[in-house]
């Protein structure tokens, strides 16, 4: 009897949670499981459940386009996250130094974040245009040997993508870091001044360690967006020149759409999922599940 009343007591709440239940279980568990299952099959255009073990994974890792994609992602990820963190932190510090027109600068640094990756990619594609872009302007000024057309070179194109991504994403990091800095007890600053600790040392030895949680959050967020990077590359380089700026996300989409190879696409998607789970699992557990219980 008691159990029954408990079951009925928040029935409305349970009914209202059905869409959430379907999304959480149906999409984020079943769909993911379905994708992973497909990676062990020989599916081409349509799903076909004959299990063939790890064949697709072996093929995947012997495919140049995939290994280049992964390599690009690593370079892109390290540079993008590194630059975002460093520049974002410096900008946050500058803004936090009690400056005039703080609001104006903050607005300027953050607005690219409101733009889509497609827009970002197209703007920077134009800025980096070899014939009419920045390179041309500088050369016309008299510096004939100036080179700044990374998108035309297989070697440097990925760095062009990094620049665009940093331009778009640094504002967010600045925002997070600024919130972190503003959250620091003002008396810490006073104590450091009374102790006679120079500003840069205060930042390096006291403030940065204090905002470590913010930095961790920033890295996790950026790492996630690195794994997902797709539209930026599609818009800015289309993966080229050749396959020089291919990325895993694009590999997956291309393979299950135009290339009609669902199984290898799903193997690639599973590979993308892996680092996310390893990286985010503990973080989510820590931030949401454990804290909710406490």
């Amino acid at each position: 009897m008691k159990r029954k009343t408990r079951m009925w007591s928040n029935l409305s709440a349970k009914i209202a949670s059905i869409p959430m239940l379907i999304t959480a279980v149906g999409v984020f568990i079943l769909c993911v499981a379905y994708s992973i299952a497909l990676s062990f099959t020989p599916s081409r255009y349509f799903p076909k459940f004959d299990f063939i073990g790890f064949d697709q994974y072996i093929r995947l890792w012997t495919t140049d386009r995939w290994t280049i994609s992964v390599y690009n992602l690593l370079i892109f990820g390290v540079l993008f996250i590194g630059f975002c963190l460093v520049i974002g932190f410096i900008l946050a510090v500058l803004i936090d130094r009690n400056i005039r027109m703080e609001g104006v600068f903050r607005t300027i640094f953050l607005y690219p974040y409101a733009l889509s990756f497609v827009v970002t990619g197209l703007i920077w594609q134009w800025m980096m245009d070899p014939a009419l872009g920045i390179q041309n302007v500088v050369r016309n000024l008299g510096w004939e040997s100036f080179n700044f057309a990374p998108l035309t070179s297989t070697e440097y194109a990925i760095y062009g993508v990094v620049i665009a991504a940093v331009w778009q994403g640094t504002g967010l990091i600045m925002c997070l870091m600024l919130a972190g800095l503003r959250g620091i007890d003002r008396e810490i600053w006073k104590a450091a001044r009374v102790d006679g600790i120079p500003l840069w040392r205060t930042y390096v030895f006291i403030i940065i360690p204090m905002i470590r949680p913010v930095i961790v959050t920033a890295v996790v967020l950026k790492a996630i967006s690195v794994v997902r990077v797709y539209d930026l590359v599609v818009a800015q380089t289309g993966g080229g020149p050749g396959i020089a700026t291919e990325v895993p996300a694009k590999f997956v989409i291309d393979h299950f759409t135009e290339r009609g190879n669902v199984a290898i696409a799903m193997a690639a998607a599973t590979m993308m999922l892996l680092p996310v789970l390893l990286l985010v699992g503990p973080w989510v557990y820590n931030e949401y599940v454990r804290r909710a219980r406490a």
Partner: protein
Amino acid sequence: MTQTQNAVARGRKPKKMSPARYGLYGLLVISATFFLTPLYVMIVTSLKTLDEVRLGKLFALPETVTFDAWIKAWSSACTGVTCEGISPGFVNSVQITVVSVIISVMLGAVNGYALSFWRYRGANVLFGILVMGAFVPFQAVIYPLIVFQREIGIFGSLAGIVMVHCIFGMPIITLIFRNYFASLPEELFKAARIDGAGFWQIFVRIMMPMSVPITAVAVILQTTGIWNDYLLGLVFGGRDNQPMTVQLNNIVTTSYGVREYNVNMAATILTAAVPLAIYFLSGRFFVKGIAAGAVKG
């Protein structure tokens, strides 16, 4: 030495603009230039004639301001097979965004409310899965969703793309509302229950009126997010529901013969206009949305 100083040291120390201060503003201005230049270039390029663009003066102001490129981008540029400009994409994006935002914010609000006040068994686990979902790469989920939508026959329709946006928006919106409701005093909820109010009554009469600011944050976050989406629109939009971002990319990539840079930039501005307007008009809410929805990356 101290003696002479003593005689004058009174009140405020005379301010000298220190070198460090100059350096600080110098760095700020340089950074601001880096962030503003692309916007500037985009705008001036779109206002030039194609002949002037070809002169290669990227940073120069247009000699004669013309909106021809804008008009062409809006109504007659080619987006693949058709040449109707980007306006059909605008209409599609508005449709997709409005419907998706309304449904996903409502769902998220109900979820957040149920999770924070009606803690039934398994609520934490459910929420944990949902938050993890915010991080799952779309690529790991998209294909099964395509298969599913084909089965029930909504693939490529407005309903299909709205559903996908609701699914991928749910974790973050739920999170925002849950955190907001968790910050409200529990007594409020208890008092309402003692007064005999039920699940929906409390939600509609008490919680929603208190949630106007956070709803605004959620709406802004979702609007910019969905408007800026490319991947989901490309895959799920079918032929009739391609959003503006997809058509924009088509305009730029499908240029026969001459590349019309001014038209491309005009189309880019038109696509960027909505999120930019939201950003500049809503400032504080946008930043709040970022803080709350930072997980979206």
